[in-house]
C-alpha cells in the first residue's frame, strides 16, 4: 500500500510537470491523480494559474452552469484536460460507451460524457488510465466515443498529447498517428509493456525509465499541497498520505 501510494505520487509529479505550460486546467471531481497534479503544479510554479475542479462547489469557479466548461474549451481558454476510457486504441480513439455491439453493449459503461467534444477543442488532452492491460489498451475500440485523429477538413484545435498508465507514459505522434513509448515506470519493463499492450506502438529498445519525482516537488506535495488535495479528494488523500502526528496536528 505504501508502495502504491508512492507510485501514485510519482504519477502526480509526472503529470504536474506536463501542466507547467498551462494557464487553465480543468479536471473532473472523480479524477484525483490529475486533480492533485494540477494543484501541485499551481503550488510549485504558479502555473497553471487556474485549476478548476468540476463538480466541486468550493474548487470550481465556473458561474455559468454546466455548459461553461464546453464554451470555455471552445474559446481556447482550457489548455489541458484528462480523458480516460474503458478501451483506448493505437490511434488514440477512446471508448467510454461499452464493449460489444452498440446499443446493446455488455458491459455498458456510463457513456461518452463530453469526450466527443472536448477531445477536439482542448490542445493538451492527456489520456490517463491506470490499468495497463490488453483489455483496456486494444487494437481497435468497439465504439469510438471520441476519435484520436481527424482528417484535414475537420475543425480540430485539440487532441491527444499522450497516454499515461500505471506502467508507462506514451507520447502521441500526431503526424505518424501512433503512440511512441516515452518512458517506462520503474515497476515495469519494456517486455511487460509489450506483453500488456493490445495496440502496436513505436519504441526504442533503450526507452528510458520514467524519472523519479523531483524530491523538492514530492516534498511540496507531502507538505503544502496535501491539505488542498484532502479538501477536494478526501478519500484519495487518506490513501496516499499516511496519517502522521504532524498531519494530525494540522487538523
Amino acid at each position, binding site marked *: 500500500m505504501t508502495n502504491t501510494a508512492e507510485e501514485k505520487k510519482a504519477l502526480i509529479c509526472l503529470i504536474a510537470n506536463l501542466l507547467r505550460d498551462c494557464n487553465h486546467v480543468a479536471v473532473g*471531481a*472523480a479524477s484525483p491523480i490529475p486533480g492533485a497534479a494540477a494543484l501541485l503544479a499551481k503550488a510549485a510554479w504558479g502555473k497553471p494559474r487556474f485549476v478548476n475542479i468540476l*463538480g466541486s*462547489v468550493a474548487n470550481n469557479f*465556473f*458561474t*455559468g*452552469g*454546466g*455548459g*461553461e*466548461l*464546453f464554451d470555455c474549451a*471552445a474559446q481556447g481558454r482550457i489548455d489541458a484536460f484528462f480523458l480516460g476510457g474503458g478501451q483506448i486504441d493505437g490511434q488514440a480513439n477512446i471508448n*467510454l*460507451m*461499452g464493449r460489444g455491439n*452498440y*446499443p*446493446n*453493449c*455488455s*458491459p*455498458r*459503461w*456510463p*457513456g*461518452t*460524457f*463530453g*469526450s*466527443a*467534444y*472536448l*477531445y*477536439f*477543442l482542448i490542445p493538451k488532452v492527456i489520456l490517463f488510465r491506470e490499468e495497463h492491460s490488453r483489455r483496456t489498451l486494444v487494437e481497435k475500440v468497439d*465504439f*469510438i*466515443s*471520441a*476519435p484520436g485523429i*481527424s482528417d484535414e*477538413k*475537420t*475543425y480540430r484545435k485539440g487532441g491527444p498529447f499522450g497516454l499515461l498508465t500505471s506502467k508507462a507514459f506514451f507520447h502521441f505522434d500526431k503526424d505518424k498517428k501512433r503512440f511512441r513509448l516515452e518512458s517506462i515506470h520503474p515497476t515495469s519493463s519494456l517486455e511487460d509493456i509489450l506483453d500488456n499492450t493490445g495496440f502496436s506502438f513505436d519504441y526504442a529498445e533503450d526507452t528510458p525509465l520514467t524519472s523519479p519525482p523531483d524530491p523538492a516537488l514530492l516534498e511540496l506535495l507531502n507538505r503544502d499541497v496535501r491539505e488542498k488535495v484532502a479538501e477536494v479528494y478526501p*478519500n484519495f488523500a487518506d490513501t496516499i498520505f499516511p496519517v502522521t502526528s504532524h498531519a494530525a496536528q494540522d487538523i
Partner: protein
Amino acid sequence: MPMGFEDVSIEDFAMAIPDGAKVAIPADYAGVSMEATRALIRRRVKNLHLVGVPTSGLQAELLIGAGCVKIFESSALTLGEYGPAPRFTKAVREGSIDLIDATCPAIHTGLQASQKGIPFMPLRGILGSDVLKNHPGWKVIQNPFANEEDPIVAIPAIQPDIALFHAPLADRDGNVWIGRKRELVNMAHASKAAFVTVDAISETSLFETEEKAAGVLPALYVGKVSVAPNGSWPLPFWNGAEVDDAHMRRYMDMAKSDEGFQDYLNEFILQETVPA
C-alpha cells in the same frame, strides 16, 4: 402569496407529470429531486422520456429499474465511485429502453436551441464519433460562412415538457433560487414548465436584494413547487447534504438482483419510508 402561488404535496406534484412526458433532469451535482422521483415511482408513471442534463445517476437508474422509462437521452448514466448502475446496465443489455446517447455539450446545446426558440444550433467537435453515427437527430451541415469544406454538426432543439429538479428555496411568488447552477435556468427556459422541489419556502421575496436575485429562476418559468426538505436524499446537494454513503452502498448491494431491487423499492419508495 401575492400571485396566488401555492406549493403542492409531493404526490400532487408527481400526478401533474403525465405518462409519456419528456422530463429534463440535472446531473447529481446540480440538485436532483429524488423526492419527486420516488413519488413518480409510487404513482407508477410510464413511458417517460428522460433527458439527463447532461448526465444522470441514481434518479434515472431507479426510474429505469422501476419500469417508468421508455427513452433515456443523455451523455452518461453514472453512479460515480459506486460503480456500474445495475438496473441501467441490465436494461441496456436487454434492450428494454431506447437510448439516445449524446455528448454533454450537445445536450446543453439542444436545450439552448429550445431556449432561443430556434430549430437547431451548430456545435464543433463530434465528427468521427460513433455517437454521431448512432444519434437519430443530429445532422452534419456545411458551415454557410466557410469558403472551403467545413462540416459542422447541427444539433436540433430539445424541448422537454418539464424540467424537474431540487433547489434550496422558493418564495411566495413562485420564484426559485438556484444560485450559480445556471444549467437549471437553461433547462427551465427550454422546457414548457419547471417542476421544483425545495428545501424550504422563503417568506421574503427572492428579488429583495440584487445578490439573491442574481441566482433566481423567475416564477414565469415555474409550473409547480413542492416543499421537500433534504429532497435530494440520498444524493448530495450543492447547497446542503452530503451523499448518504451507507445508503448508496446498500442500494448497490440490493440492486444486484431483480428481487433485491424490488425489495429496495418496497422498503424505500413504495412504503413511503422517509430518510432518517
